[in-house]
């Protein structure tokens, strides 16, 4: 039996005479036939529950950061500078994860860093979700010249590789560091930049999904009954498109977390002394030899969080694709 989700996408693309969207290909490559069937039987499985657990932990710590008994992430303790995990400088509480480049507590910075990183990633994907989703819905539903315009817009945003686009936007939009003239707060500029970059990603999946769902009979039926476009989109099409959007959104958050890391190494993330997982790596990389923990602790946080988000994103996709296939 041919692999349903992949063939569906490829076939669709072929029918329309356009090449297959690489974004959707990558996602569908993750879900293969045998895995789809396995998911239906077993539910989420251990990996799924671990992922949910990890995300909950990370989000929980991020939300609770202000009330947790953590050291101030900016507080310097000379003795623990660049000392590895369990560095205890004779102070009352040990420093479980060691000290960073300047002697700040790693555990505290990881949690506060996670907070900032997650906020940035989530808000930027939210922008993509809303704006990209809107564009995708409109283009996929109305087709014709509307779709051409929407596709063009998305193509233009995709014409520049994401990291470079984000980098250029952050550089232009933010207040030049060290000045007070014009521009946005660096964190806001970063969120906007990553948001703009997320728009085409969410836009494409929404559009592809909308194209497919708009052809269904119940949509035609609703239109025949005299329902206005807006009602049809919101009531009939959107609920079916949302699962795909959620799936991509989760994956998008993972990508945004990694993008923040890349931008941090280039000096384009938030202010360097505000901890984010990326900023911590950016500073720590010059002491890989004697204090590798400064880089690898946030790196592991990124790795596990991205892993968990990837898994959950795929799982959602698989679950809903199965339902789709059953129709």
């Amino acid at each position, binding site marked *: 039996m041919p692999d349903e989700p992949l063939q569906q996408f490829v076939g669709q693309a072929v029918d329309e005479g356009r090449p297959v969207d690489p974004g959707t290909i990558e996602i569908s490559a993750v879900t293969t036939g045998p895995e789809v069937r396995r998911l239906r039987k077993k539910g989420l499985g251990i990996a799924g529950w671990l992922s949910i657990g990890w995300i909950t932990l990370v989000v929980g710590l991020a939300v609770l950061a202000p009330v947790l008994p953590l050291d101030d992430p*900016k*507080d*310097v303790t*000379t003795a623990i*500078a660049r000392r590895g995990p369990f560095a205890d400088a004779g102070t009352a509480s040990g420093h479980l994860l060691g000290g960073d*480049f*300047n*002697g700040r507590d790693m555990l505290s910075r990881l949690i506060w860093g996670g907070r900032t990183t997650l906020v940035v990633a989530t808000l930027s994907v939210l922008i993509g979700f809303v704006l990209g989703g809107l564009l995708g819905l409109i283009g996929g539903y109305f087709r014709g010249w509307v779709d051409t315009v929407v596709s063009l817009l998305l193509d233009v945003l995709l014409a520049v590789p994401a990291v470079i686009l984000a980098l250029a936007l952050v550089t232009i939009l933010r207040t*030049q*560091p*060290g*000045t007070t003239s014009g521009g946005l707060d660096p964190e806001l500029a970063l969120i906007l930049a990553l948001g703009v970059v997320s728009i085409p990603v969410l836009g494409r999946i929404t559009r592809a999904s909308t194209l497919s769902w708009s052809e269904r009979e119940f949509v035609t039926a609703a239109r025949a009954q005299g329902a206005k476009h807006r009602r049809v989109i919101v009531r009939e099409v959107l609920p079916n498109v949302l699962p795909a959007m959620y799936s991509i959104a989760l994956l998008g958050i993972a990508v945004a977390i990694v993008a923040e890391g890349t931008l941090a190494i280039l*000096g384009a993330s938030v*202010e*360097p*002394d505000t901890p984010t997982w990326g900023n911590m790596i*950016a*500073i720590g*990389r*010059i*002491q*890989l*030899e*004697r204090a590798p923990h400064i880089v690898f602790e946030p790196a592991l946080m990124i790795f596990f969080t991205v892993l968990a988000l990837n898994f959950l994103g795929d799982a959602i996709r698989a679950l809903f694709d199965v339902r789709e296939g059953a129709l």
Partner: protein
Amino acid sequence: MNSRGAGTRSFRSRVVALVAAGSLALGVVAVSGAAAGAGTPGSPGTPARVAGAAAPKPGGSVTYGLEAETGGGWCPTTARLAISGIEVGAAIYDTLVVPNSKGEIVPYLAKSVEHDPTYQTWTITLRDGVKFHDGTPVDAAAVKLNIDAYKSSTLVGAALKDIDTVDVTAPNVVTVKTKVPWVAFAWFLYLDGRFLIVAPAQLANPDTCNSNLIGSGPFKLDHWTVNQELVANKNPDYWQKDAKGQKLPYLDSITFKPVAEAVQRVNGLQGGSLDIIHTSDGQQVDALLQKKSSFNEMYEQPGRREVRYYLMNEAKPPLDDFNARKAVALAIDRQQINQIRNDGVFTVADGPFDSSVTGYVKNPGYPKTNVPEAKKLADAYKAAHGGTFSVVLEHTNDPANVAEAQLIKEQLSKAGIDSTLKQDDQTAFIAAAVGGNFSIMLWRNHPGGDPDVNYQWWQTGSLLNFGKFADPELQTLLDQGRSELDPAKRKAIYQQVDKRFASQLYNVWAYYDAWMVAGKKTVNGFMGPALPDGGGQPLFIYGRHPLLGIYVTK
């Protein structure tokens, strides 16, 4: 339904070839590649370095990792050289004089530099037969052109303001008259290695002057690809020989590579892509010291080190206010910075002078860290100035400097002083200082030659007085020191200078920055031969060292 038709034989072999090529790509490429790079450092059985172990043989080349590119080039009228540019200068050019290990300034390219009893007439006599790389002679006319060019430059010219006239009094003699008795004028023909004598041909065309490097030095420019490399080849007609009569330099070529991050330079050295590097980064110096057995290292000893300090802009609020500056100075904990930033290997500085420099005072009165007092002063400032007290900490983009700036920010915040961080590459950094558009800069300067050499950095109204402080008392001391003939009185004057800085807090002195030059075990001769005409041994100061004596062994 047979949409997937049978593949053809040729396609299959293509696919197989693709995969085979892919997995063998590296092997195939390696097989056709040339011999591998240099040997691994730290191999067992490497003997400890014995002084003068192997006799220098000519030949070979080295790659030198510098801390920055010199974007502005080497034109005397416009150059803004920092150590990287100065080191390249040491390859391609000569200076009229150099300092020796006794702290004296002795003739080098010049045969002699003499003064009359009033120290107002200086006679520079040049050597016979020395030529620039283009064959033109290093004569008085060329040297006068150089001095005039430097004098006319906006930056270096500030140091040479007290030159009155420059005349060619014989084909090989330049006579300089100064406006005031200038005891240490000879040092100003060196300017920490910036006073490079360039060929008239280089100066002739202003459009190419900064990249068309023609000097009289041991190496000639081959090519300069900005931000990638500058390659210089042996000057076969160089005027110096070693003690055995062998022509200098030994090396066939030097390739200078800018590698901005200190850790990357060390990595390059360890990995073999760089043969010799310099650094003044405390942590990297510490790391290199711990690996002493793997490299040849030259580490600047205390005495004439330059100083790392936080240069404050007295022309702009908030630091135009003395109490504001005091708040900053009291809030910054230099011991902590030295400990964290440098692993404690450097020494905290209380003034611009290191221990061997005339004018050094052990306790000049620089205030100790006092955060509560700093907070009081900061609060008072805020109360009088609309509730805000914020500064900008500007630094170059080496992550180690970024970290140091963060440390300072944290310390300032304890006193209620807000700060933001601003990052520049080195060229923009220097430009920011010159332009006066900064608040606090993480600077490095004042290597320990004669204290008068610092005059233009501190003179009221000088372009090089980046902090723009105008202190009549300090200015008087500087002028007196310049012309004071009695060494004991002179020393006392500069001690006053040291104390004046401590009391007026124009800068926050942090620590003495010691330079280290480290190279592979096969690279030797960092300081080169003794200076010509019995001048003594060259001085390793400000990170600058001669390149004519470097040789490689197997």
